[in-house]
């Protein structure tokens, strides 16, 4: 098997195809601390792409409550159990990837969920860990905890779905790294469904072929962020592109947050797929669980997030989240403002780092009325 370099693991690993990075990589960052699981993203995706027959239980974008929420049922518990306990000491991963752990004759370790596993897309909603005794009070990390995990296809650099397809129906676009499935080539063997550890490829029971998140490529090609990103009412997401992992651009907000500041971390990097959706970890969750989910570096990310006010550039990058429907290829912080720029370096958005406060007069002379909403 060819050797490819996985920057998230800090080492080379085996992958069935030669490594060929796209010119730029579709990527998304989620600030988990801001997600309230309103499911607006889920509905935006559903109404845009999966409103048809055979797609009833299919959510290319879903938001699940961790740790008791999973779509499909138990997906991460099952694959972690199959992979077994692995070393998670950085900065080089010494454990096995899913490719390393593949059974004989297969390219990647996986499992095929049962149809009924998709029956409860929002199971575990708001369920927290442990018992809530009388007199409990908040500490960090929380003794009883839960958080919301929004998920789309990770458009992995080393996609397991792509590697497992016996018909080469799945491909990764060289211009933006979006992973697509050619439904006219697909014969519905579900090897991709079995292989993807994140279970983000879905079998359509009506068309009898598989389908998956397409990264809203018609929007992205036009310089617009995905539906799930621009509809997010909590402004928890930003979608853009990652550059070269070995030469990050400090003016690209995604490069800055992921590759330079390491504030946003990949989901289950130990699987070895180099997933390209990144998460700012929740500050209130016990670190061992977070390390299991996001790898080493979570403690540093939580610490950096607590001090973000002291770092105008970092605050600026976070302020761009949800600030514009267009893709910010570059950003700059100057004079208390953050500016986002498109691919041609034209300014597309300008946001103050500190929201201005306006105190209105109690008596409105023009309307001859007293205001009751003054602060």
């Amino acid at each position, binding site marked *: 098997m060819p050797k490819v370099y996985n920057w998230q693991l800090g080492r080379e690993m085996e992958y069935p195809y030669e490594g060929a990075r796209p010119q730029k990589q579709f990527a998304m960052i989620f600030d988990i601390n801001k997600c309230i699981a309103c499911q607006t993203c889920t509905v935006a995706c559903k109404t845009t792409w999966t409103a048809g027959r055979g797609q009833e239980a299919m959510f290319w974008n879903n938001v699940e409550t961790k740790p008791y929420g999973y779509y499909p049922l138990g997906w991460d518990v*099952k694959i*972690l*159990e199959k992979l077994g306990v692995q070393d998670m000491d950085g900065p080089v991963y010494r454990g096995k990837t899913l490719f390393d752990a593949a059974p004989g004759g297969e390219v990647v370790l996986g499992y095929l969920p049962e149809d009924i596993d998709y029956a409860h897309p929002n199971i575990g909603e708001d369920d927290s860990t442990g018992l809530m005794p*009388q007199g409990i009070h908040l500490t960090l990390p929380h003794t009883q905890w839960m958080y919301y995990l929004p998920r789309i296809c990770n458009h992995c650099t080393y996609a397991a779905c792509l590697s497992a397809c016996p018909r080469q129906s799945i491909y990764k676009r060289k211009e933006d790294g979006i992973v697509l499935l050619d439904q006219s080539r697909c014969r519905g063997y579900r090897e991709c469904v079995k292989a993807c550890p994140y279970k983000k490829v879905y079998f359509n029971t009506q068309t009898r072929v598989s389908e998956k998140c397409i990264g809203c490529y018609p929007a992205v090609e036009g310089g617009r962020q995905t539906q799930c990103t621009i509809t997010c009412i909590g402004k928890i997401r930003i979608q853009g592109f990652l550059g070269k992992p070995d030469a990050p651009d400090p003016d690209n907000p995604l490069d800055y947050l992921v590759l330079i500041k390491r504030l946003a971390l990949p989901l289950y990097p130990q699987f070895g797929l180099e997933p390209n959706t990144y998460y700012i970890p929740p500050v209130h969750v016990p670190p061992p669980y977070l390390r299991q989910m996001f790898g080493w570096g979570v403690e540093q990310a939580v610490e950096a997030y607590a001090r973000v006010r002291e770092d105008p550039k970092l605050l600026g990058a976070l302020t761009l989240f949800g600030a514009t429907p267009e893709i910010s290829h570059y950003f700059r912080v100057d004079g208390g403002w953050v500016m986002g720029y498109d691919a041609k370096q034209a300014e597309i958005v300008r946001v103050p780092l500190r929201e201005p406060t306006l105190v209105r007069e109690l008596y409105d002379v023009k309307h001859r009325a007293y205001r009751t909403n003054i602060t």
Partner: protein
Amino acid sequence: MARARYYPGTPQGITRMWFNGYMATPGSVKGHETREDGAAKNQVTQYQALFRYGGHQSLTRSSLKPTHQTHTLITRKSWSNEVTRGFNVDVHCVTSAPRESIARFAKAEDGGLGGKGLWRPVALGLRPAAENDAMKQYLGGGFVRISKA
């Protein structure tokens, strides 16, 4: 009468009820009392209630809450744990839903078809208070080994 499931997020003796919009109607009550399977379903319109009798509002005595005139009442302030005295919108105004009520719970029967068996996610060990070994390991971050803190 509503279907309940185990929820660990509140102290013992305190529970919560939400997303229960489909209250009982005369048709659904009739369905429950006459159908062989006892489902609270209107046989004409097929409306399926979440309650056999009553609804979310059953926990209030009337459209006005029992506490609507008690300006000296000590209550918990909305959106906080601060205990305050006197007027509170969620307590004293008509908001169409009870904020906090005192209720007595009694179990009618086991859930599931015919009251038999466990709900599949519980049987698989993936629900709170019914975790299997893998789930317990997962909750503690036990699928990774960390030698350097």
